[in-house]
């Protein structure tokens, strides 16, 4: 009885759905696309997806035998983890956005489709891309991801605070030594005099005991926002990985970098920095250290312009390449340059169709629309005049130039990056708290991570042998 009822229902439904689609038209090929962005960044991607779908429908109108591709973008938080679980469960989306630094770990795990053959068949032009960004998706000799939205970082300065400190707001520091000098001049305390009176004083004031001074403005803090704490060594000519098999955490350049980081804890006092920073609100709020004018100089990314517009519209700011150590101008224009990338997961139900969208997103108009919408620059060498004209960020050319610099570094390509990153984060913590010297902290990182890297290679060799 129940069986018959179900059958009738199924037939009825089949008829309904059958009646809804005209037989002579090819059904659209649906592509599920997982992406992490929300807000204006998500809307920028939505617009590009709409364009693509529109183009596909137009194609189908002209050619009745063509089944149009329809990309359905789904916004997913923590996409890097959910994607993993979906791939492991054998039910991945056709296409997904990810961060470039997850590519090695995913590739090591066999979670991604090698884009190489499809790129080759489609006549993909490698030389159209800024090489550095394209290389982010390449690992162990294969192409696993294509960059779509690149980023770079620079020194952002508060021009008003420069003026108030008697510095030229149009001359940001060029060397680390200058940065330190300016930082001291931009540091202000509220000092309580013995008679109870309060007055503002400038500099590090080593002779005033901590109980009699309260930090009210910092020139520069390596820990604000501290997002690239693992990478300070690169600004001093160091690196984290020397070839695929060698950890280089305790190189002389890295030691020098973290001695410099520690110098700020020494000058200001670690408790002072912590209390001062805990007074800041969320990053995306007017109480942000830089946006509220409490920190005069910060290392920040191309996206900071959006936050300035939104939370501190009147802020007079400037961007400049992060300074290099005095006497080493060859290290000028050092920046961290990573990108948001697109990957086709292993087991993607429609890799070919997903690739069509990927290919669309490698064309200049589509990339420019996306990157303009997200207020970044594009990973392509060619840039249209319209793009520059329409771009709201006054320093966009600088950020792009940084991204193209020979000193642009990326998160090292290794499957143990997460572990390495946590280990470095802890080392920086220990160094900034002056619990350990940079020598001790970095030597511990070196030993632990070399062990981890060797273990990782043993595991990979075992997997390859299987």
């Amino acid at each position: 009885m129940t069986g018959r009822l179900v059958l009738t229902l199924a037939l009825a439904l089949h008829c309904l759905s059958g009646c809804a689609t005209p037989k002579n038209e090819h059904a659209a090929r649906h592509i599920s696309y997982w992406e992490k962005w929300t807000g204006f960044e998500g809307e920028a991607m939505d617009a590009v997806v709409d364009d693509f779908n529109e183009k596909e429908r137009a194609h189908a109108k002209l050619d009745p035998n063509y089944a149009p591709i329809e990309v359905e973008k789904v916004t997913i938080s923590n996409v890097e983890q959910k994607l993993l679980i979906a791939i492991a469960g054998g039910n991945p989306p056709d296409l997904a956005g990810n961060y470039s630094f997850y590519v090695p770990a995913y590739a090591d795990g066999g979670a991604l489709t090698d884009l190489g053959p499809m790129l080759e068949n489609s006549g993909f032009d490698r030389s159209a891309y800024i090489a550095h960004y394209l290389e982010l998706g390449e690992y162990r000799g294969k192409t696993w991801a294509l960059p779509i939205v690149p980023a770079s970082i620079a020194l952002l300065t508060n021009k008003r605070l420069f003026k108030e400190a008697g510095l030229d707001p149009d001359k940001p520091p060029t060397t680390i030594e200058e940065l330190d000098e300016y930082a001291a001049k931009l540091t202000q305390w509220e000092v309580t005099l013995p008679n109870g009176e309060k007055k503002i004083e400038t500099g590090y004031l080593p002779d005033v005991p901590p109980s009699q001074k309260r930090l009210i403005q910092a020139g520069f803090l390596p820990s604000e926002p501290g997002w690239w704490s693992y990478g300070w060594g690169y600004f001093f000519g160091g690196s984290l990985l020397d070839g695929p098999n060698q950890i280089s955490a305790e190189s002389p350049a890295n030691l020098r970098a973290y001695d410099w980081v520690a110098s700020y804890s020494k000058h200001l006092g670690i408790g002072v920095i912590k209390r001062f920073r805990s007074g800041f609100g969320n990053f995306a709020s007017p109480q942000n250290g830089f946006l509220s004018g409490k920190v005069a100089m910060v290392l920040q990314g191309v996206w900071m312009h959006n936050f300035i517009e939104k939370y501190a519209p009147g802020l007079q700011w400037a961007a400049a390449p992060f300074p290099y150590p005095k006497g080493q101008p060859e290290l000028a224009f050092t920046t961290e340059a990573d990108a948001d990338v697109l990957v086709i997961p292993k087991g993607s139900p429609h890799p070919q169709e997903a690739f069509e969208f990927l290919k669309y997103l490698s064309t200049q108009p589509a990339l420019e629309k996306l990157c303009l919408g997200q207020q970044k620059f594009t990973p392509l060498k060619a840039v249209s005049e319209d793009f520059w004209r329409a771009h709201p960020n006054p320093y966009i050319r600088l950020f792009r130039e940084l991204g193209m610099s020979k000193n642009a570094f990326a998160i090292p390509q290794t499957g143990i990056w997460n572990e390495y990153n946590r280990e470095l984060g802890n080392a920086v913590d220990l160094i900034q708290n002056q619990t350990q010297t940079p020598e001790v902290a970095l030597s511990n990182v070196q030993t632990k991570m070399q062990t981890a890297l060797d273990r990782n290679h043993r595991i990979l060799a075992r997997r390859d042998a299987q």
Partner: protein
Amino acid sequence: MSSIDRINRRNGLLFCLPWLIGLSVFLLYPLLAAFYYSLCDYSVLLPPVFIGLDNYADLLKDPLFWQSLWNTTYYAIGSVALGLVVSLSLALLLNSKVKGIGLYRTIFFLPSLMPVIASSILWLWMYNGQSGIINTGLHHLGINGPAWLADPAWAKTAIVLMAVWGAGNAMVIYLAGLQDVPTHLYEAAIIDGAGFWSRLIHVTLPMISPVIYFNVVLSIIGGFQAFTQAFIMTGSTGAPERSTLFYVLNLYNVGFQDLRMGYASAMAWVLFMVILVLTFAATRLSRRWVNYDR
């Protein structure tokens, strides 16, 4: 077997079935699968490769394993002891017959209804070194409070102190236990001239000892599984200086960030054994001090 027995047996099994299915699908199978994976190199994405006891051998050499085990033990001991004292004291106070007692009970129970994530964010603000309510209060008393969650010497203690927030659950159970103590025992004790403390130690505590035992075992298990507070308040690195890197947090990092699911499974099994041994020990000890005699 009569047909009634057969029907009863069938119906009995049918009624048990949802639980049996739940147990085997959501508990037994994952438990056994995790044990198998703990003997493998398993990245979730590729088929597991059997490697024997390597993961367990690596664990013994892993400083993070020991550090996270120590942090968790510190938290478990601290939160169990503090939770016991606070919730039992509250229950004793709220067991008195005063006007509006229902309201007081509700007030003290309410915080434990708050999800851990929400209360973690709340405490994050309270522990703020610069403008948090705790340091502001201490400042009025002339004490310069620590940076709490930013200070490696205080962060763990801060998270232990937070456990008081969830004391309401245990409190309600103690309260139920307290109301179950026969009043004639107190009357007899009073006639014998027993004061408040004598009655507490010689009547109340022995009579509610099964309830104490139950709560202690539950909080040991909960304490060793602490994760959310640290994850929300100090991030997955267990900052500062890994003082809040709890065992399950470390396990999460290894499994879901590093994709070393085999190693993470081994960690999970070690934790399971630790909790099992502790629960067993608590049960053995309880024979000496838990009084089921009515």
